């Protein structure tokens, strides 16, 4: 790690713009600064990876089962519509 200069991002700032980064919503210059910081900071790499893990764990793994009586009711509506 080199001495921090005024141009460098601080870790404290990184955690506030990480979503903007993941969303691809950063201005090109900001993205460069972010990538520069990340290249030298294993802790912020870990943080970014944690945020990606949050997204993955939050995702619904399987389709929800539709209650049979709900499905039956909807199928009745579908048959009525077809007529």
């Amino acid at each position, binding site marked *: 790690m080199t001495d*921090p200069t005024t141009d460098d991002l*601080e*870790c*404290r*700032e990184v*955690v*506030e713009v*990480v*979503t*903007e980064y993941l*969303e691809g*919503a950063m201005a090109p210059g900001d993205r460069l600064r972010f990538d520069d910081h990340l290249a030298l*900071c294993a*802790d*912020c790499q*870990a*943080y970014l*990876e*944690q*945020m990606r*893990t*949050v*997204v*993955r*764990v*939050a*995702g*619904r*793994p399987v*389709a*929800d089962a*539709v209650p049979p009586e*709900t*499905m039956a*009711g*909807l*199928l009745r*509506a*579908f*048959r009525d*519509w*077809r007529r």
Partner: protein
Amino acid sequence: MSAPVAGSAISADDLELLARLRRGDEAAFTQLVERLHGPMLRLAMVHVGNRAVAEEVVQDAWVGVLAQLGRFEGRSSLRTWVLRIVANRARTRAVRERRTLPFSSLDGLDEPGRPAVEPERFLPAGHRWAGHWASPPRSWGDVPEERLLSAETRAVVERAVELLAPAQRAVITLRDVEGMTAAETCELLGLTEGNQRVLLHRARSRVRRALERYLDETEVGR
């Protein structure tokens, strides 16, 4: 129905399903219900905030879907089109119930927002490395995948999502739980892109903290 224009959002699979639905194919309808009923219910929930009312909204939305099926022009995916019908009905219902939309109230977007990470985890001003990690996050690279994706870990995340402010919960539910795009989420919740992103950021940051706390506690003694 007009021919789909090149680059339109509807897929070949959707077009086939649509044709079968219009022919009255029950298997196609069952497939559509299985795919969309859950997402429809969760979308209705974030609007009306009440399970029983959300179920009525979805029921009503299905009737709307059938009524409009003949007029659907395929300018969006089938899912987006159906969810738009749900969002419209849910909004109407929320107004009729004299509820302010759960995610437009209390969303606190005007407030400065809490920091994503506790300030004391960074080195204080005056320190040579001020603003850098004092108590850095642990890499989760060594946490076994089956543990991360276990029912217990998922329950921790679900609970953290439930505890979020309504607007944050609405956004993370559509984006990360349902896997919708930012554009879909903005449209279905009536949010600007910027506000959607701020809410997503706050939501994910809070959920990360909960997950970190859980993993740190349970890793002790391993």
